[in-house]
């Protein structure tokens, strides 16, 4: 790897760190609610990774007004707006599944669920 030449690249790199934390929580923690929270962290880091390159120095929010010439890119905003909606839908459905799993198994820990399923 050639290293990060421009200090402004570090802003993107920091978002990757956020993503790694989210991924780690999803994979490593056994609690289903914690997993969903980690999924949320992962999702929001993706939002930043999309929107950060759309920012233009000296630019303004993409709402056309008199006397403003430079706007940030509106396209990532549209995509991420949809992604947030899908994100909250995922969260709600996932939490509903967690509730049902807890009712059936009496636990929301992954390994305990697997234990209960194992012998049967």
């Amino acid at each position, binding site marked *: 790897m050639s290293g990060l030449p421009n200090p402004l690249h570090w802003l993107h790199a920091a978002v990757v760190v956020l993503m790694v934390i989210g991924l780690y929580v999803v994979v490593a923690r056994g609690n289903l609610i914690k997993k969903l929270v980690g999924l949320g962290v992962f999702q929001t880091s993706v939002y930043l990774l999309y929107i950060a390159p759309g920012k233009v120095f000296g630019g303004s*929010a993409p*709402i056309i007004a008199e006397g403003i010439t430079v706007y940030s890119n509106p396209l990532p905003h549209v995509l991420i*707006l949809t992604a947030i*909606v899908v994100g909250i839908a995922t969260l*709600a459905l996932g*939490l*509903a599944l967690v*509730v049902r799993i807890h009712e059936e198994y009496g636990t929301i820990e992954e390994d305990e669920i697997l234990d209960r399923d194992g012998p049967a």
Partner: protein
Amino acid sequence: MMHREAIPRVVVKLLIPFLLLYALYVQFHGELGPGGGFQAGVIVATAVILYGLIFGLAEAKRIVPPRLIEVLVPLGVVIYAGVGFAGLLAGGNYLDYFVLDPDPVHGQERGIFWVEVGVLVTVSSTMTAIYYAFSGRGR
């Protein structure tokens, strides 16, 4: 637990009309500033949730009955899809707004308006339905 939550009750009573009014502002000002159907829908749902939190779920269900919510959830999608079919009927493509009005720019504005209304209806009712489902389920 005497005089349960008198202060939150009063303040929430004051806040909820502002929330609903503000949701309307966000909805209809969404073409000129930040906002739109989705944000307004979430704010409407928030007002219902706040009411349910403070005054109890049964009270919230009395004011916004679940039957109404169950009608509204698909209604929003139907409105959105209906805008598309309106474009078809007017002789254009699906979701083509230019043909909705003799003046194409007005057609666009009309199409965007109804689409946002559809999004508002779906989002607000779905969020309320999800809240009802979660908080209505006994342990």
